[in-house]
């Protein structure tokens, strides 16, 4: 649109767009997301009621909410308490995560550093990783019993491989100039590792950690599927086998929420440890 006023040409440079668009621009994004969620839940509830969908196929959000409320308001000592089972699964995942990361990162650096050994061992590691871990889980129960250890081991196994790969990549990514710098300053191998290689590898390690965090929980849950008396995975299976689909959905909601929180945590951690990696400017700029 333009209008000619005297000798000036007034031109509206930005096209205005539709009214809906303008309204949405006024509302902050978080609020829009929330409203979307409300609309989604309302639609889900309506669909279940209007179409008479059986609870076996799709429970209504109200029913899922019943399961969530019951699960989170039960006392901690009750076997129906979500807090209790969440705690068990969280603990298994945490220990597995830490163990798998430690072994994975150290192995990754070792295999990258001693490249010949690395090349010899790597095909075996790849072969092991190709195994469907879910097939290993029942063996864990036979070897390690019913306690927490088989779940922790499952969790650690799933975490190990991505951390191995990412730390190997991180090791190889270190700028050779930095290594020269350290050598010129007379650095020992230990100093080289802690002060140059490890910090340089952080962005790669974090790429692996994002995956590892989710896999740690997955491993714990797969372990619980196979033989457990507690944990969210056990509860999920129990609800499923007793055709309590509302309960299954409730557990899925909990797992989704936990995974979401973990990813946020990882993002904060990455921002702290790798604050420098995206903003490294090229030498020669202004």
């Amino acid at each position, binding site marked *: 649109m333009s209008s000619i006023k005297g000798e000036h040409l007034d031109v509206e440079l930005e096209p205005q767009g539709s009214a809906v668009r303008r309204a949405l621009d006024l509302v902050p994004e978080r609020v829009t997301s929330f409203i979307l969620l409300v609309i989604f839940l309302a639609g889900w509830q309506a669909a279940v009621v209007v179409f008479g969908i*059986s609870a076996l196929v799709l429970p209504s959000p109200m029913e899922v909410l019943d399961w969530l409320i019951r699960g989170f308001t039960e006392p901690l000592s*009750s076997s129906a308490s979500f807090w209790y089972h969440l705690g068990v699964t969280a603990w298994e995942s945490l220990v597995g995560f830490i163990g798998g990361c430690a072994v994975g990162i150290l192995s990754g650096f070792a295999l990258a550093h001693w490249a010949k050994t690395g090349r010899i061992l790597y095909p075996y590691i790849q072969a092991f990783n190709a195994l469907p871990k879910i097939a290993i889980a029942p063996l864990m129960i036979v070897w390690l019993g019913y306690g927490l250890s088989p779940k922790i081991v499952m969790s650690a196994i799933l975490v190990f491989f991505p951390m191995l790969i990412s730390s190997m990549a991180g090791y190889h990514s270190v700028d050779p100039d930095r290594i020269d710098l350290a050598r010129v300053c007379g650095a020992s191998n230990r100093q080289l590792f802690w002060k140059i290689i490890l910090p340089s590898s952080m962005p790669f390690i974090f790429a692996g950690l994002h995956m590892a965090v989710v896999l740690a929980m997955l491993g714990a849950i797969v372990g619980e599927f196979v033989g457990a008396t507690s944990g969210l995975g056990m509860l999920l299976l129990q609800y499923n*086998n007793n055709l309590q689909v509302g309960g299954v959905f409730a557990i899925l909601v909990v797992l989704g929420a936990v995974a979401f929180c973990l990813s946020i945590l990882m993002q904060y951690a990455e921002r702290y440890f790798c604050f420098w990696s995206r903003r490294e400017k090229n030498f020669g700029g202004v």
Partner: protein
Amino acid sequence: MKSRIYSSVVALLLATSSYADAQNLTTFRVVKANANLNIGEDVFMMAVPKQLGYFKEEGLNVELLPAQGGAQAGQIMITGGAEAASILAEAILKIRESNGDIVGFYTLKQNNGFSIGVLPGSPIKTLADLPGKKIGFGQAGAGSDQLLTRQLRNMGIQGNFTPISLGYGAQVATGVKSGQVDGLFFWDSLYAIMSNQGLKLNHIEVPIQDELAGFQLAFRSDYARKNADKIIGYCRAMSKAYQFALTNPKAAVELFYKEFPSTIPAGKDLSAAVTDGVVILQAWLKSATSKLPGGTAPGIEFKERWENSQKTYRDLGVLKGDSDVTKAYTTEYYDKCNNFDRAAIIAQAKAMK
């Protein structure tokens, strides 16, 4: 040998870590043939005797452990991970063929309770209608579909149905509702669960199950030799609970929910959940006591049925069928397990509201 040492260490750790030691109770672990708690044998194998103190009377602290199926349960017991296991009779025979030390001593369920389930109005009215149809199983090839085929042949019915694997869970119900399968081959308590949720099916019996040895409670014979008292202690407490459940299934379900609150459905009031639970338990008990001569206590087993099991599964190619079937089970414990004041238990059950 190594695994025995390892599992002994595990067993030791499990035993010493139990609170029971402070109360001078011996730990007794039973590993069961499924991975979840559900209304069925768990009611009298664990919930009722624990809640009513029957285990304590026998000086036992009992732990119920899950497993993925009877074969794994047997494996766990044999390697020392448990003192007793629930397991199908044919699985016992299979393990024994590999020289596993496992002996059935108490029949938990006379008839395993499988039946064909079809939607009302289905063209399948008798077993003779099965050939050419798609039938849903938990896992095709795991044994139940072969058993069904055997049933057909025994009745002179030729022709085959198509087995479809449905897994376990809500998709079993939707599978038959949507027509993905023409009928289901599942068990009593699962049908009861689905019926509680609104899926009513017609059932066709599969009587071959009455001729075969039923769902067993088993031990390792070398454990039993030195610990017969503990076996009997567990078994007796369990039999009392079995009688209790038969007499007052409603109270039994309430005790089950009390012991395992995670099994209580949410969003329903407890009395509705109990009513549903009773439907499930009664369906289970019906098969469990099927064809039991009047007045006979549960737990009994017969040589002919064991022999039939071996023969049937040998013909199905599951077993080699050359081992001595009389060593696979024992009837010595039946009387000892049922050696209690039955009238008192019945009275106790009736007295509970």
